[in-house]
């Protein structure tokens, strides 16, 4: 589904990714772990097309198409979802309005008919309910006044509504208490653990992986994947630290 080959990327003039190669197949959940500054968030931003993140070498294909040639909104329509480490507050724009516009823009891009207000609300209510978010919150401006945990939960509600083929979740577990971690973990399994979908979990800690069992764990250090293993690698990392393993 996603094939990253020898990816080099700069932020400003600074090289961050230095030859990263990674392949995700449908039905797989991959976790990327690594020390601060290794390039984990940069990878998420490069894949989703954030301005200022410049690819200098290498390629990324998504379902056989050149991902890097697409604009951010086209990547979303193609089925890519980035769960933000720091979800952005957008004053004045309600969640409902934002998500309906986003979903229908994606559908239009794919040549599908837009959802009516009623159809959309049905989907939104289901997804919000499954993640324990009430409809009043969905009517509030996007992430404004939300706690850290509510913002992350809101990312999962969005993921449920948009229903992407590939989710890149950037530290979705940071800032969550134990209960919220479980809710979010359940959300990821319910929405994304399917034979035709894939997930790239970017995380610092093993704890999310107790809920979302990865098929592969990669260590990202200094802009490259330095080690790949199964779920047990995360436990090893937790025990021994990155220093031992990344070298």
């Amino acid at each position, binding site marked *: 589904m996603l094939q990253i080959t020898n990816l080099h990327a700069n932020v400003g003039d600074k090289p961050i990714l230095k030859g990263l190669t990674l392949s995700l197949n449908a039905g797989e959940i991959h976790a990327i772990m690594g020390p601060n500054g290794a390039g984990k968030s940069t990878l998420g931003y490069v894949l989703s097309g*954030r301005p200022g993140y410049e690819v200098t070498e290498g390629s990324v294909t998504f379902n056989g198409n050149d991902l890097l040639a697409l604009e*951010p909104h086209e990547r*979303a329509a193609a089925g890519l979802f980035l769960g933000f480490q720091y979800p952005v507050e957008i004053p004045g*724009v309600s969640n409902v309005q934002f998500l309906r516009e986003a979903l229908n*823009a994606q559908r239009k891009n794919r040549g599908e008919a837009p959802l009516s207000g009623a159809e959309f609300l049905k989907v939104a209510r289901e997804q919000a309910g499954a993640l324990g978010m009430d409809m009043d919150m969905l009517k509030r401006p996007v992430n404004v006044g939300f706690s850290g945990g509510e913002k992350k939960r809101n990312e999962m509600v969005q993921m449920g509504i948009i229903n992407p083929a590939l989710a890149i979740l950037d530290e979705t577990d940071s800032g969550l208490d134990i209960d919220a971690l479980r809710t979010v973990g359940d959300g990821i399994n319910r929405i994304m653990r399917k034979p035709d979908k894939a997930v790239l979990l970017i995380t610092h800690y093993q704890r999310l992986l107790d809920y979302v069992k990865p098929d592969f764990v990669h260590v990202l250090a200094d802009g490259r994947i330095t080690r790949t293993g199964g779920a047990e690698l995360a436990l090893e990392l937790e025990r021994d630290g990155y220093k031992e393993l990344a070298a």
Partner: protein
Amino acid sequence: MNRSAPTRHDEAWRYSDISAVEAAWPLAAPESIIVPAGGNFARTILQDAGSIHQLDIAIGKGATTAIHVLNIGGDYGRVELNITLHEGADFKLGAVQIGGGTQNLEIITTVTHAEPKATSSQIVRSVLAGTAIGTYLGKVAVARDAQLTDSVQSVKAMLLDRSATANAKPELEIYADDVKCAHGCAIGELDAMGLFYLQARGIAPADAKKLMLQAFVAGVFDGAADEEMLTDAALKKLGELV
């Protein structure tokens, strides 16, 4: 008899398109409105043809006035309000100006609290692209006896291009000593991270900008009799700029 046309040395005209003003000179006398004691007055001004609107409004004891302005059209558009508030009167202004290309748009207000206990609130939002100039000069004058005045000015401008200009000057002249006069002023550009967030969810760049700008001007026309017309016209104009 009309005096000669203003120049840049006149404070109230310092950012104006002087050649357009000269071409329009002499102006007709300002429209004069007297709102009787206890009365209610409302007016919508849609400036969409490049013209100069001047209104003098005296708001009587306990009376209210609500003015809604959408300043969007022509090369040069000016809306000038001279408001005088008598005891316990209330004045509300909700104004949006949206300009692109080489447009020069301005809203000039003088709100005089002549007597005690009057309230005034001015909300002005400008969205400017290209080399457009948007100006708000707003003076609140509180007379010596006008105790318990309560006045608010909220002025914000959004620049879509670095080449656009916003001038904002909330100005207070207070001679009473027991008053509340709040004023806030901010000039900025669209939040890049917010735009990326919207795009990462599938919204095309122009639509993402439009959505954020819609939020920026939202609420200004709340309560206007022509709220829908004003909102539609504002959105249409925003759509042309993004």
